[in-house]
């Protein structure tokens, strides 16, 4: 692994990268410049509104990772703002403990926000989307009610005065610049996460969670980190909010505010940072612009949300995404370059075989697999054929840990593979593709491939937040290997294109590239030839064959008998969940039962 990490990036690519970086940075710098000029050209009122926008952005930037990236619909995140605001105010006021300095109180508020962000996030690991949305909503109600009831601490309905920051941040302009600084910092760290393996994994959880699991991405760990982070941002924002408001009472933390945070992200566009930033600024400013319409403001937010969901699901970000509207060549062919395979697959230890022994699995009384024995040897292509419903894909899912067999064992070498734990397979070097490609349509082809190598990164979430050296090394390594994998499958020219613009056959090769990122010891392919042209099937066959010659064991579930007989070393024929026949392609071809039951027709 270290061999590739240090490989120097090509200078041309590096130059193109920095140009693209600048283009991406430009809108942010423009907004920052406008924010810096604002106090000089307007009055305290506009400075106040801008301060408010900055504070809201501190919260929204963190929440963006939860809602926009991970796709968790946290509607009631205002609860974390409430917690942060009360924590800071109460600690600075000193009605419970000795008074704390404002900045210490802000740090504690962040910690409190993080803890509760995590607690509220816990149900998201187990519950359906709608359930989670309801849970956050319920939590927001409870926090307000507790703030009302816990009078000794929170002052009940009368509330408590907000903290005042020490000089020079105690003036309108000083406080504004402080909030702006925090907002810039939050933009930077969330951008770092967004462009890290963690950011890509979050999006993978959102749009292709099964694929994410197969790539070894641990949903609990990742979502847990993000909930902690978003809670911390919101807690800090709460402290700033209390300072801005000068006095807080439960009435200040309305559901409308929560909806505004949430909608900012969706109007801005999921998986974007610039979009939600613009939306936060606009939605903070809009009620001021339309002050006489204040009574309609929530109504308008809701109408806007409905419009966005139905008409522009990509939000502002998709409107600003000019690159994806550029034409790509319509007439393209996939030319794999298997000769590059040793660069990514070479130099690995050879484990034993994957062995299934007497596996039984039924769905509601129907035996999908009925006492199956199977062995996938390293360096060989093992074909699995059979009519529809014979249990081919089910077998693959048992190996991958998605299904829990009722009886029998699945072992790798001598070691049993954990049942019902699909996220552990990547670490064992088992990669797979899917019958219907599971990809992130909104991400580029390159990013999709990089998702496959998520577990190969060394840096932690915090290192990514701050863009420390290990994070940067991870990124360089993943980018290098992903380009390599794309070149191997023949999609190198499409690296920067959004994945949802690719043709169906290209998606199949893209999935193989993603699987290669694991440097797999075993590769399980679920009908990779479906929908491919004859020429594409030939290329696919060569590629699969070459992969197996690098020592990788391949399980090929397929309907195309020709492909199976061309490239397999060993074939198992399934019928009604049982092995009908097994042997070399030559043996199967003449097997009387197979011929009459399956091949003959």
């Amino acid at each position, binding site marked *: 692994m270290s061999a590739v990490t240090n490989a120097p990036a090509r200078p041309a690519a590096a130059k193109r990268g920095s140009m693209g970086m600048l283009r991406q940075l430009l809108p942010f710098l423009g907004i920052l410049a406008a924010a810096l000029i604002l106090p000089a050209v307007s009055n305290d009122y506009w400075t106040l509104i801008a301060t408010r926008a900055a504070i809201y952005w501190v919260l929204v930037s963190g929440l963006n990772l939860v809602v926009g990236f991970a*796709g968790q*619909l946290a*509607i009631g995140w205002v609860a974390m703002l409430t917690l942060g605001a009360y924590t800071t105010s109460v600690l600075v006021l000193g009605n419970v403990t000795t008074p704390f300095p404002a900045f210490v109180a802000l740090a504690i508020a962040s910690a409190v926000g993080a803890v509760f962000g995590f607690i509220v996030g*816990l*149900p998201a690991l*187990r*519950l*359906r*989307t*709608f*359930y989670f*949305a*309801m*849970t956050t*909503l*319920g*939590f927001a*109600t*409870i926090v307000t*009610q*507790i703030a*009302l*009831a816990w009078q000794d601490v929170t002052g009940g309905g009368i509330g408590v005065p907000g903290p005042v920051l020490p000089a020079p941040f105690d003036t309108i302009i000083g406080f504004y610049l402080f909030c702006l600084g925090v907002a810039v910092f939050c933009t930077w760290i969330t951008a770092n996460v967004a462009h890290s393996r963690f950011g890509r994994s979050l999006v993978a959880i959102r*749009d292709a*969670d*099964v694929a994410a699991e197969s790539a070894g991405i641990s949903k609990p760990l990742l979502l847990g980190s993000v909930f902690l982070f978003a809670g911390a941002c919101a807690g800090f924002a709460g402290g700033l909010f209390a300072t801005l408001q000068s006095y807080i009472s439960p009435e200040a933390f309305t*559901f409308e505010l929560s*909806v505004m945070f949430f909608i900012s992200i*969706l109007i801005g566009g999921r998986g974007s940072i610039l979009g939600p930033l613009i939306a936060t600024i606009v939605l903070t400013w809009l009620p001021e612009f339309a002050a006489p319409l204040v*009574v*309609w403001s*929530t*109504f308008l*937010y*809701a*109408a806007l*949300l*409905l419009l966005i*969901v*139905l008409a522009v*699901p990509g939000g502002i970000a998709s409107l600003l995404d000019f690159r994806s509207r550029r034409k790509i060549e319509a007439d393209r062919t996939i030319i794999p370059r298997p000769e590059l395979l040793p660069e990514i697959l070479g130099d690995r230890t050879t484990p034993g075989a994957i062995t299934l022994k007497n596996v039984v699995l039924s769905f509601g009384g129907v035996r999908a697999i009925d006492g199956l024995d199977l062995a996938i040897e390293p360096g060989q292509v093992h074909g699995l054929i059979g009519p529809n419903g014979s249990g081919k894909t089910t077998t693959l*899912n048992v190996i991958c840990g*998605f299904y829990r067999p009722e009886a029998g064992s699945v072992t790798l070498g001598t070691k049993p593979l954990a049942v019902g734990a699909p996220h552990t397979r990547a670490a064992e070097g088992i990669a797979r593709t*899917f019958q219907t490609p599971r990809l992130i349509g909104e991400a580029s082809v390159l990013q999709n491939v990089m998702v496959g190598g998520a577990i190969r990164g060394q840096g932690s979430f915090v290192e990514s937040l701050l863009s420390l050296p290990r994070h940067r090394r991870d990124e360089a390594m993943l980018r290098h290997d992903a380009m390599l994998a794309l070149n191997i499958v023949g999609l190198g020219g499409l690296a920067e294109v959004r994945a949802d613009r690719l043709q169906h056959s290209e998606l199949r090769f893209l999935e193989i590239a993603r699987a290669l990122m694991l440097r797999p010891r075993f590769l399980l392919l679920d009908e990779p030839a479906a929908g491919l042209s004859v020429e594409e099937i030939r290329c696919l066959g060569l590629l699969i064959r070459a992969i197996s010659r690098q020592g990788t064991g391949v399980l090929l579930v397929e309907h195309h008998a020709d492909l199976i007989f061309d490239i397999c070393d060993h074939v198992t024929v399934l019928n009604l969940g049982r092995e009908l026949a097994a042997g070399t392609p030559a043996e199967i071809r003449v097997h009387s039962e197979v011929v009459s039951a399956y091949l003959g027709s």
Partner: protein
Amino acid sequence: MLPAILLSGLAVGAVYALIGVTYNVMFSASRVMSFTAGQLGMLGGVLGAAFIGVLGLPSIVGFVLTLAGCALVGVATEIIAVRPVLKSLEQHLYVLSTLALALLIQQFTAINWSTEPQPFPTLLGFRDGGVGDEKFWLPIAACAATVVGLELLYRRTLIGRAFLAIAEDNFAARALGLPERNLRMASYALAGVIGGLAGFASGQLLLAFFANGAMLNFYGFVPVALGGLGNNRGAIISGLGLGVFQQAANFTVGGVFASVAVFSVFIIVLLVAPQGLFGAPAQRRV
């Protein structure tokens, strides 16, 4: 004291249960949980008060018009917020579209009706406030009528069986040639009627108040979560249980802590038994 708690608990619980059934009926037809379920309950109260109390229509006319209005809102939900996002169910856009529609309904009511609770007219004349008061018995009767009605619909009528078929497996149902879209719209109309009935029957209990929608959204969802998604029997039992539990908590620990208690039970049950206490069909992922 005990009968009073039990009676008011059952009455409130009946409303929660009916909103739970409203969620379920919509879910069965479309696999969508809609935030408009609670708003239908709110509209049942507000429309009833508007037709009978403000416009002075006879009770029975007001009742029919209220249910018709709510059925219309149900169908509108299907057309505006559900059908366009059904194609991409796995993206959960329905959470957003139905939330948006629910907020639209709620704010529209707040602006054009009132932000204060308004009275709901007496329907039968039993208003002594005690155990014979109609405000307790109307929701309970509405709940019983809905249980019987749904049972008859599902067991005895062709359209009811079609509903069941769609709920079981809508791909298969479509393959059988069932008019899936029309059945879905009919289901949403039915959900509107049930939600409206819940709101109308509880008008005297909860008053005609715009914020009831959000309240019913949450307390009507709890029975669904506890009873298991799509499980009407579970929703009815959990709803009634929730009502009694809530009133008992109100009595023993009072106001704020009662809602904390309900919320805690909700979270704990969900974490321990994500499929609910009465079970729900498991989702197939791969």
